[in-house]
């Protein structure tokens, strides 16, 4: 288990990110199915949240009412989250390779109420930001200070419901809500830009009343800084657009959309693990 020390350094975070990546490719290879591309692109975001002292949470008490909420709206990236939850102590690391097996708590997409630490059942894209609005409204109603983080894919932002939620979050001035877009520029069938471009994504969120922060989504130190900046915002919701590379960390997966939803072969797994060990 990775211990998050109070003064965790950027180098330590980078090491944790490497560990999580190794878990991801191992898990997906063991299941012989899953989504490596969009899991690997989200690693630094999830590392900074769980190990960069951003999320206020207690792995021994997942239902703690004052915990920060993290909702993985891009549910297909869940291997990255399972890896972080296991390394945080929500469940044993040895359980990770049960991913996608019968009787496993680690379903192919996140399931609320089944896996400790999972806050929403997702996998049908476009829904997590609305759920986040609900949590943020509950916090306001109860006078609680917890934050709600929602991680979306960029392709996912083609879903209309994302903009319904963005509109209501802006109008309710939900300063406790933070959206992070894992902008890896690809969706299943190809490049987001070619299929149904989101540009300008920052201006879209800004026009809905959000503050937008752009960040290199693989500079884990910069991501941590952006997340802490977002925590300082109390008047309006914040959207962090994290510019990422699909399949990041494994050379033959990077920007190779074949690995959107395909497991590495056993040979490819060995190559991937050796690259991640370097």
């Amino acid at each position, binding site marked *: 288990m990775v211990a998050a020390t109070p003064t965790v350094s950027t180098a330590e975070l980078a090491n944790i990110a490497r560990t999580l990546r190794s878990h991801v490719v191992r898990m997906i290879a063991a299941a012989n199915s899953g989504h490596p591309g969009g899991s690997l692109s989200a690693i630094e975001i999830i590392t900074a949240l769980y190990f960069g002292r951003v999320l206020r949470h207690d792995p021994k008490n997942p239902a703690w009412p004052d915990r920060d909420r993290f909702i993985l709206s891009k549910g297909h990236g869940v291997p990255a989250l399972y890896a972080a939850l296991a390394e945080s102590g929500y469940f044993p690391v040895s359980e990770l390779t049960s991913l996608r097996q019968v009787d496993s708590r680690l379903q192919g997409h996140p399931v*609320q*109420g089944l896996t400790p630490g999972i806050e*929403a*059942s997702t996998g049908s894209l476009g*829904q997590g930001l609305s759920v986040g609005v609900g*949590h943020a*409204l509950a916090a306001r109603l*109860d006078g609680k200070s917890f934050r*709600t983080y929602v991680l979306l894919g960029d392709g996912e932002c083609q879903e209309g419901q994302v903009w*319904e939620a963005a509109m209501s979050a802006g109008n309710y001035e939900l300063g406790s809500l933070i959206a992070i877009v894992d902008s890896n520029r690809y969706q299943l069938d190809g490049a987001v830009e070619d299929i149904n471009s989101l540009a300008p994504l920052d201006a879209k969120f800004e026009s809905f009343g959000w503050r937008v922060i752009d960040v290199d989504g693989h500079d884990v130190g910069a991501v941590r800084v952006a997340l802490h900046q977002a925590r300082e915002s109390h008047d309006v919701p914040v959207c962090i657009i994290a510019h990422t590379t699909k399949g990041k960390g494994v050379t033959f997966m990077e920007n190779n959309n074949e690995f959107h939803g395909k497991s590495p072969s056993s040979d490819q797994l060995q190559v991937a693990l050796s690259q991640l060990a370097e």
Partner: protein
Amino acid sequence: MTTANALPMGLATREAYGQALLEVGTANKDIIVIDADLAKSTFSWTFGKVFPERFFNIGIQEANMVGIASGLASSGKIPFISSFAAFILCKGFDQLRMGAAYPKLNVKVAGSHGGISIGEDGVSQQSVEDVALACALPGFVVCIPSDEHTMRAAVRAAAEHDGPVYLRLGRPKTQIVHEAGVHFEFGHSIEVRDGHSLTIVANGLLVAQALLAADTLARRGIEARVIDMHTVKPLDTAALERASHETGAFVVAEEHMHHGGLGSAVAQALVAGTPAPVEYVNLGDRYAESGKPDDLLDKYGLRAKNIVSAAERVLARK
């Protein structure tokens, strides 16, 4: 014995919904009410004007509304969300599936203007498939109260029930079928008239029509039992089994399409336990049209006389 001729006109069930929301929301501060720009039509505004801090009109965003309810319920609130039945179930179905049914959350869904009795607005606003959709959500309680008293009781029961609930509300004023203090529990039907020739199982507006039909049948020496099967899921199979033994024939009447509603549920239960012939009074496999509610109920065969004909057919098969 309840006779239909004596039934007084009561409130629309949607109006009773609003009153009951105010009642349960006064007692329980965890109750949050959300509407999608139809608060004055669904009567959720009855709550909203008294408790503005716990009322959210989120605009014309049914999918977002269901998602927000999912988040509120996950953080310990009891959200009651309302819109027209046609919109909240059709536009919010995936969100209800992922955000209420699958995680078994405490989300209460009120679909107003159910059936064709909404009238002139026509098919886009007429919900004829909502019961089938709601029943297809695992773990949902699906309830179609027949009058203002059972509507109020259903809202109280929904507030107490731990899990997702669908309530169908109606637009027109509705005859009062039950006593104000009627005992009400989800999954427990109410026998509103005893009889041993056949059983008429109905819910919503069709309960009053069933009582009217029972009067007509009685004049011909046919004693029809009438059951208000307000909860389609979970279904009161014990009452059906008893009725099958004691009456041996059924008419199922509802303001819904033929597939997936009360008729399907009753037939499925009877076949599994105590088979008996069944005839149906419903919309069939079609949409209706614009028109005055009474004209539509006449044209599309959702009247007492249609129940009487169905009773004659089923008795011939007994």
